[in-house]
């Protein structure tokens, strides 16, 4: 299942039979990027990545070359390159297909990345649940050792590079780079206080870079085809091809490759358009951590800068499409429960806030909320955003704040009608609505801003 795409760049080998085998991979340009890299100085590799303008594909969009140039050199400590393959952002499926379809692409990228920052050891921190990807990578690394691409003497260059496949054990927070490093050190995956940053003190207190699978896999392509090949796509600030996952209410959800910079409406068209009988209502441009956007924003260009301008972020390339048949409160509740479940518990705003926000959303969705709850949601979110230890806390507030911003009317309708207007979740009968409770308490005064629920009382 390849990316049947608007373009074919990094997915060029997806459809090739047996390309997970090293010999087939070599026949299709495999390890040519590494060969080039061995002819270059480390700084030249970094310059090439900088010139191409590769921005981190894991969500933050931080320039990869710049990140590599920060890695402390000459400290006498080993330098580590760690691949963040803990793909878990809701809606994201673009790294796993790389590892399953073309695992050598990542192995080669790791070696090249290692050369660029003078690292002798790489770790691929793989999401535990990705068993098939783990199998593919294990085979690929073993073959790369046999062929001398890995080990004491990389392709006869006299340089050493080793690569460990480290399978994780199920924790979304380990996608946060410092939590990942703690996890890789055998601890609970909780984020670290920064500074020091991993570039100075990362894994085992040594200089470390942590990069996303897609960012690392891109580098051999750039060395092999040249910087111009990469920059033929995209805009000045958002270059290159991008692997994306389009999911939800589209006709053909799937993994596609697109040039940066196309209007997001085209992403839906690439996925076969909206599902029959569905109309676009809202979408997330890059996973649940990126604020959802209303249908009106669909003509925004797919670039880091334009999506930020529109009030969201490019995130992980997880384009989730929701139609008019979907309840926004239900979706927001689902994501909030996700963050509640995945909060590492280290800091209070996120640990406690996630729990309470889910409770409040639950009561709105099931028709027992009040208008006050809307202000409460906003207030709790304001107290989490910017006040939690890592980005998970901020992400937790994204769907809620954006939901309230763009679909306040729908939240209010839940409260007014005492049920989900779309009928997605049946109203609870175990907790009576406000009006019923008021009646049971001798017709106590129901706050005037809370309308009488329809069909109750």
């Amino acid at each position: 299942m390849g990316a049947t795409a608007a373009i074919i760049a990094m997915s060029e080998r997806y459809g090739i039979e047996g390309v997970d085998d090293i010999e087939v991979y070599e026949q299709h340009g495999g390890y040519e990027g590494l060969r080039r890299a061995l002819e270059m100085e480390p700084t030249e590799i970094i310059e090439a990545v900088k010139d191409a303008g590769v921005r981190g594909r894991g969500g933050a969009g931080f320039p990869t070359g710049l990140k590599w140039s920060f890695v402390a050199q000459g400290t006498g400590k080993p330098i580590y390159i760690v691949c963040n393959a803990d793909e878990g952002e809701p809606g994201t499926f673009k790294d796993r297909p790389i590892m399953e379809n073309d695992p050598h692409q990542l192995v080669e990228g790791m070696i090249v990345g290692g050369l660029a920052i003078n690292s002798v050891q790489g770790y691929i921190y793989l999401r535990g649940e990705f068993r098939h990807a783990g199998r593919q990578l294990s085979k690929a690394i073993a073959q790369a050792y046999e062929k001398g691409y890995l080990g004491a003497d990389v392709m006869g260059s006299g340089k050493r590079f080793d690569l460990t496949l480290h399978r994780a054990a199920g924790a979304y927070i380990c996608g946060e780079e410092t939590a990942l490093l703690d996890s890789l050190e055998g601890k609970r995956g909780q984020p670290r206080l920064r500074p020091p940053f991993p570039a100075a003190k990362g894994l085992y207190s040594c200089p470390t870079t942590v990069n996303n699978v897609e960012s690392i896999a891109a580098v051999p392509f750039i060395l092999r085809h040249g910087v111009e090949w990469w920059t033929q796509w995209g805009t000045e600030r958002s270059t290159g091809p991008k692997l994306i996952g389009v999911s939800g209410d589209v006709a053909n959800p799937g993994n596609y490759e697109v040039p940066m910079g196309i209007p997001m409406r085209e992403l839906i068209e690439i996925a076969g358009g909206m599902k029959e009988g569905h109309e676009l209502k809202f979408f997330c441009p890059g996973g649940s951590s990126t604020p959802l956007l209303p249908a009106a924003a669909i003509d925004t260009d797919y670039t880091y800068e334009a999506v930020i301008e529109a009030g969201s972020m490019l995130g992980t390339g997880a384009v989730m499409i929701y139609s008019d048949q979907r309840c926004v409160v239900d979706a927001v509740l689902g994501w909030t429960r996700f963050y509640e479940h995945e909060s590492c518990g280290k800091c209070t705003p996120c640990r406690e806030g996630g729990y309470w926000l889910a409770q409040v959303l639950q009561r709105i969705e099931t028709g027992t909320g009040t208008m006050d709850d809307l202000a409460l949601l906003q207030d709790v979110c304001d107290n989490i955003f910017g006040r939690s230890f890592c980005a998970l806390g901020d992400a937790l507030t994204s769907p809620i704040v954006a939901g309230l911003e763009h679909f306040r009317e729908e939240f209010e309708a839940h409260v007014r009608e005492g049920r989900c207007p779309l009928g997605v979740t049946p109203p609870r009968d175990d907790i009576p609505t406000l009006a019923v409770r008021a009646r049971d308490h001798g017709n106590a005064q129901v706050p005037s801003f809370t309308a009488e629920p329809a069909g109750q009382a």
Partner: protein
Amino acid sequence: MPISDATREEARHLIARYPVARSALLPLLHLVQGEEGYVSEDGIALCAELLHLTKAEVGAVATFYTMYKREPFGDYLLSVCTNPTCAMQGGREIYEAYVDRCGGHIDRDGAGVMVEHAECLGICDAAPVVQVNYEMYGPLTTDEALGLLDKAKAGDPPPSNRSGEVPPSIRQVHREFSGIEDTFGDHLVEAARLQATAEVAPSYRSSETDIPVTHPGGDPAGHGGAAFREVAALDLVPLLGGVGTNGQDPEEDVVDPDRHTPSDEAEAEALEEVGERLAGTEDELAETLTGDRPADPVPAAHDQPPLDPDEGATPAEAGDATEED
């Protein structure tokens, strides 16, 4: 059930693959779950013993990660994605039907299954998705999903419609996750040995989040005053004339104010540009550029516990020993 000697040996090999022993904890937990089908008290005790940690420390890690199960359930784990994209396509109904049919989350009839709800499994084009022992199945109707459950209970799950693989038992799967079956382990042992004996070896202590420990493998510098001094050093060190931490070169303790300024003009521009667009990044970059912060601790030889207490081997020797096998 005590863990077998063979597993103990394999655990030692896994430990030797890392320059700092504790890194092997997640693989070790997979390994012991691979032997017993869950992480038992014995499994935790083995990890603690081999890594020179307390059982509480190992338990804290084992309970943090969802893939480690704390009770036996049988051969098959069914994980149903209930994240919004799957939920809206029917994932919630599947999950409820599973719990209903199993009369809870564990059904020990037949091969034995555990049912759990999972967060996004990263295959949203196949929504709704169910994993059986971490093989993907989807999209499924509720009926198809129930059929899958029945087959798993009968010990005969079909091949995944995504990878084409038939999921083996949960024991085999976790054994695989430990990495012990990766055929390039010996290379990693040698690599770890070289790193552990580097000019400045990797160290155990690396962050403020460490749990204070007082036994081998821990940080003898402590986490109270020493850690505090380290934080204070950021701003106060020039003032204090470079308070040494952990006996490190005092020169490195002094935070040079000039180092806040990126030397390279182009890089400074890039920083600014990125900083404009990414909240908080500017600080991050500036801090990164200030380079090392003082405080580094323990030579790795302390970190890597001897593989055999009797031999008292250093990590280097330990590495060699394993390699000869």
